[in-house]
């Protein structure tokens, strides 16, 4: 193995337009580990995953995947890197015009010249791993939210990627589906020997199975550590997040002039 850290983010800055979303972020994702990125909604977690996937270019700093600087790659190079990645999108992003089976088969058909019989076996195997082999004929619209996410997961691991990125895998799921997904992530990580990057704001789940956690707030890494270290952390921000307090370092209110001023001087 070449690098210990399969993904590294160094002094990364990124923003849409003039607004800087990330200021000087550094993170490392060691091989074979489950690393979680946590933070409030809209703090740019999904954007970090998109930066790793090379869909957007950083304003400063760099992301390296497998020793290669992502934004310096040409199209071919980025595509080669992406073939090592699997991504589970927040809402599954299943292709609505394809059946469950075809969705999972899609990356295989596009990237390999495997005969159809072998693709069939592989797809059923992947679907079996997420417990949905019986649903292979259904269309994405016929699936519940949890099922759709499991199908998307099967699709993300179709080509046995080295890196699996999960964008909010637990959001909007009932506790049972959540436990199922949680279990799956851990098993997949260990069975495939893959590296997992999980974006979430679900404290309990993340603390239960992540090896290492980064807290992002205000565009930079506010805290990092293993779940054990973090739960003992005295940092006010972490405390607020972990215990779900309404107000604290992360304000409840969006930036605004004083309430009084707004009420009396509204034009």
């Amino acid at each position, binding site marked *: 193995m070449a690098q210990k850290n399969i993904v590294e983010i160094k002094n990364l800055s990124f923003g849409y337009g003039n607004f800087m979303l990330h200021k000087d972020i550094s993170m490392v994702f060691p091989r074979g580990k489950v690393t979680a990125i946590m933070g409030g909604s809209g703090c740019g977690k999904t954007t970090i995953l998109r930066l790793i*996937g090379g*869909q957007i270019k950083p304003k400063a700093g760099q992301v390296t995947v497998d020793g290669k600087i992502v934004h310096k790659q040409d199209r071919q190079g980025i595509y080669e890197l*992406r*073939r090592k990645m699997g*991504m589970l999108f927040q809402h599954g992003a299943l292709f*609505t015009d394809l059946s469950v089976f075809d969705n999972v088969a899609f*990356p295989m058909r596009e*990237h390999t010249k495997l005969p159809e019989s072998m693709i069939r076996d592989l797809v059923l195997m992947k679907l079996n791993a997420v417990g949905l082999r019986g649903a292979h004929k259904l269309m994405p619209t016929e699936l519940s939210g949890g099922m759709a996410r499991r199908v998307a997961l099967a699709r993300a691991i179709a080509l046995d990627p080295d890196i699996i990125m999960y964008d909010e895998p637990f959001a909007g799921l009932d506790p049972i589906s959540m436990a199922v997904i949680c279990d799956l992530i851990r098993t997949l990580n260990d069975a495939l020997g893959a590296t997992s990057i999980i974006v979430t704001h679900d404290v309990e789940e993340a603390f239960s199975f992540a090896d290492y956690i980064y807290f992002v707030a205000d565009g930079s890494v506010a805290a990092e550590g293993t779940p054990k270290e973090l739960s003992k952390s005295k940092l006010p921000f972490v405390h607020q997040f972990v215990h779900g307090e309404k107000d604290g370092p992360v304000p409840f209110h969006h930036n605004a002039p004083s309430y009084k001023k707004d009420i009396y001087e509204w034009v």
Partner: protein
Amino acid sequence: MNPIFKILSNIGNQVTSRIWRLGSATRLFCLTLIYSSESFRRIHLTIREIYFTGVMSLIIIVVSAFFVGMVLGLQGYYTLQKYGSSESIGVLVALALLRELGPVVTALLFAGRAGTAITAEIGLMKATEQLSAMEMMAISPIARIISPRFWAGVISMPILASIFSMVGVMGGYLVAVPIIGVDHGAFWSQMNVNVDFRIDVINGLIKSFVFGVACTIIALYEGYDAPPTAEGVSRATTRTVVTSSLTVLGLDFILTSFMMSN
């Protein structure tokens, strides 16, 4: 700010954003062409889209063409009979259809029927991150999604326009010969003598090909560029119809003046 400055900056803003959009649409067009080999190498992708753009538009095209042809026949008859040349009704119907109405009305119907469907589909695919997902799988959405739809549109349009013209002529025949009583032989022979294959039929085909390129790329661009929200997609769909229609009419004027000049 001074209201005049406000108006000026508004105009400037509008113009730059239009030009910017034109530029990025052109860029998408070029990329589509570059990735075209994919949609021909895997022809079933394109065939599938021909089904959705072409075959699904057949009914509206045939029905509209039939009525347009019949109306042309009636209107032509009322005018021509005053000059005692109601046999020329066939010529009038055929020329109007081949030169203008066939390509133009087909393109307008295409924009409304197939163009909006393309925009909404691509816009929704973008809003539900399907395009992003494809990119993350190292598959270019332009090669896999945009290009087959483009070629399907470009292939369908001249076919639809030909069907439109032919069905329209049949509609005109139905009004002229059995209903009004124009002589069957005179109807066809007059048409045959006065309609020129190269000037009328081929030029009509060229027009509909150009309209096909324009309408399809506009529909694709609007979808691809739509803000990934429900509102964004619905606005993009509206814009597809408006932009396509205006573009078709403008292009028609330019093409006609070129074709007439030589």
